């Protein structure tokens, strides 16, 4: 039969339409996860209606004391712990990450560049629980000796290990950004005889600003959501931490500790899901920021 006969053409067209429909269906099904997740977290937290706790008490005032009479559920200690740990990890990882990014993108010779990327990917591929274990057997044990602490776990250690965990994400995003700086800009700068320091400080830095911002945001989103490492290293104490040497309990650790022993649909269950919902919303908000910054970087690269 003639291969271009109308019948075969129609079958082909039809089968293509079927494939197309299946692909679209798969996509929609997959995407509905996200909406389902957001909706379900909202439902389980009962934040919309029937949330058993005054929101101000929940976020700021009350301690986390589910066993007290009457029980009180407040996550202020967890919010403070999360902010301390994530802040510390950013303070440590951002300068180093930018340095590594600038190094790989600008001054490393090609063979070194080719080593750096897999090295960072190995760092990113180590699971959270292994980082937790590593921190436990190295830093926690050492801190007990160095600082004469009864138990070595503290927010400082959690922050240090967290910094190592978010470092590869910050570094590779920064490297990508520095690489996307237009070549004419670099050529123009170096043909004027400026040093690498001057070019980085006065020229590249400005051109890379949106991308670097995205790198920091990405690191922050990671740091806020990281669970196992902070669970194992921060000490899991419900007291409000006053310094980095105190034990604390970041939000994620609170969730991981308490969920297993919570009666379904109780007030405590609502409190946990409300915390989870806040975390989800914050991370998604950061992600929106990253998206905007990335669009800016892309415009830069195309302009």
């Amino acid at each position, binding site marked *: 039969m003639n291969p271009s006969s109308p019948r075969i053409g129609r079958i082909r067209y039809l089968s293509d339409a079927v494939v197309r429909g299946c692909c679209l269906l*798969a996509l929609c099904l997959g995407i509905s996860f996200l909406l389902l997740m957001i909706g379900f*977290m909202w439902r389980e937290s009962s934040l919309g209606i029937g949330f058993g706790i005054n929101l101000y008490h929940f976020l700021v005032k009350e301690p986390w004391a589910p066993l007290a009479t009457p029980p009180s559920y407040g996550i202020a200690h967890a919010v403070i712990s999360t902010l301390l740990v994530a802040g510390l990890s950013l303070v440590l990882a951002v300068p180093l990450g930018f340095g590594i990014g600038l*190094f790989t993108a600008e*001054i490393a010779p090609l063979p070194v560049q080719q080593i*750096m990327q897999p090295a960072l990917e*190995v760092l990113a591929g180590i699971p*959270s629980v292994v980082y937790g274990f590593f921190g*436990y057997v190295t830093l926690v044990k050492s801190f007990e000796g160095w600082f004469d602490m009864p138990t070595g776990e503290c927010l400082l250690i959690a922050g240090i290990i967290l910094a190592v965990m978010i470092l590869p994400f910050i570094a590779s995003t920064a490297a990508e950004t520095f690489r996307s700086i237009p070549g004419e800009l670099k050529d123009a700068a170096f043909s004027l005889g400026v040093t690498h320091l001057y070019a980085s400080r006065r020229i590249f830095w400005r051109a890379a600003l949106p991308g670097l911002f995205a790198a920091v945001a990405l690191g922050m989103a990671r740091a806020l*959501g990281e669970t196992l490492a902070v669970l194992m290293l921060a000490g899991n104490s419900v007291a409000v931490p006053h310094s980095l040497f105190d034990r604390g309990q970041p939000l*994620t650790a609170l969730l991981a500790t308490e969920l297993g022993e919570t009666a379904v649909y109780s007030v405590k269950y609502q409190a946990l899901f409300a915390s989870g919902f806040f975390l989800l919303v914050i991370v998604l908000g950061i992600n929106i920021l990253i998206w905007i910054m990335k669009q800016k970087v892309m415009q830069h690269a195309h302009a």
Partner: protein
Amino acid sequence: MPTPEQTLKYPGATMAAGDSFRRAVSRDRFFQGLLWACGLCGFLLPVAIIAYLLSGGIHSLSRTFIFDYPRGTPLGARGGIWPAIQGSFALAALGLGLSLPLALGGGIYLAEYGRGRAFATVVRFLVECLAAVPMIIYGLFGYAFLVVFLKFGVSLLAGGIVLAFIMFPIILISVQESLLAVDDAYRDMALSLGVTRFYLFRKVLLPQAWRGMVAGVVLAVGHAVGSAAPILFTASIYFSKGGLDLREPVMTLPTHLYNLVSEAISFDQAFGTALVLILGLLLFNTSALLLRRIGGVNSP
């Protein structure tokens, strides 16, 4: 005066000869040294961590450690981790089986059928959001939705579905990106010959893009297998003697490691478990990287 070598390295700087020039150069030297130090740090960190785990765990590795189930008092202090290895594999396989069809279809749609439309942009953004959701939120959602609401109970099935949620966005993004990396000229030529989009995908795009896709799948699976947070409350159990059942919970490597450390059962066993986990993932991820690197050069 700058030496000829300096003149060569900073062309145009000869006019600024003198003190300020020398100061600028020495400052720049310091700056570059600092950057080299940063780079060295980034290289030494992973090497040091892996080396530390190797030196601490290598002596725990043995045939019994791999192929036996946990024994001793407290449970896990002796014996092996076979049920955990089994459980991790089962979870990964289940998650991949569930997520791959959806992610493949979705990626193909975004890259081929819906390219350039506002719909595709919005969906891609949602997928990236899904990829950014913290692991513990997946665990929370899986617990509330699958374990409690759908009454799956803490089981292999629930855990597999949660891991599928986690793998879906990562696989989808890599499928889309590998397809987009194929030169548009191939598409134009094929389509101008009157073939269907599906034919184009099977015969022209797939041979060029499959390496990138497989690499993405491997990375996604490695990412999901290593994380304990999502399966802590959906699939994992403290002890099992092995054997798999969709309705029953399983032991997994990351949760087993967590239990060994948090209950202070045995650090030797914990070192061994961490080493098995990390070596497995390293092997897995390295193969993905190699595949991707080879994939950069397309043979016709």
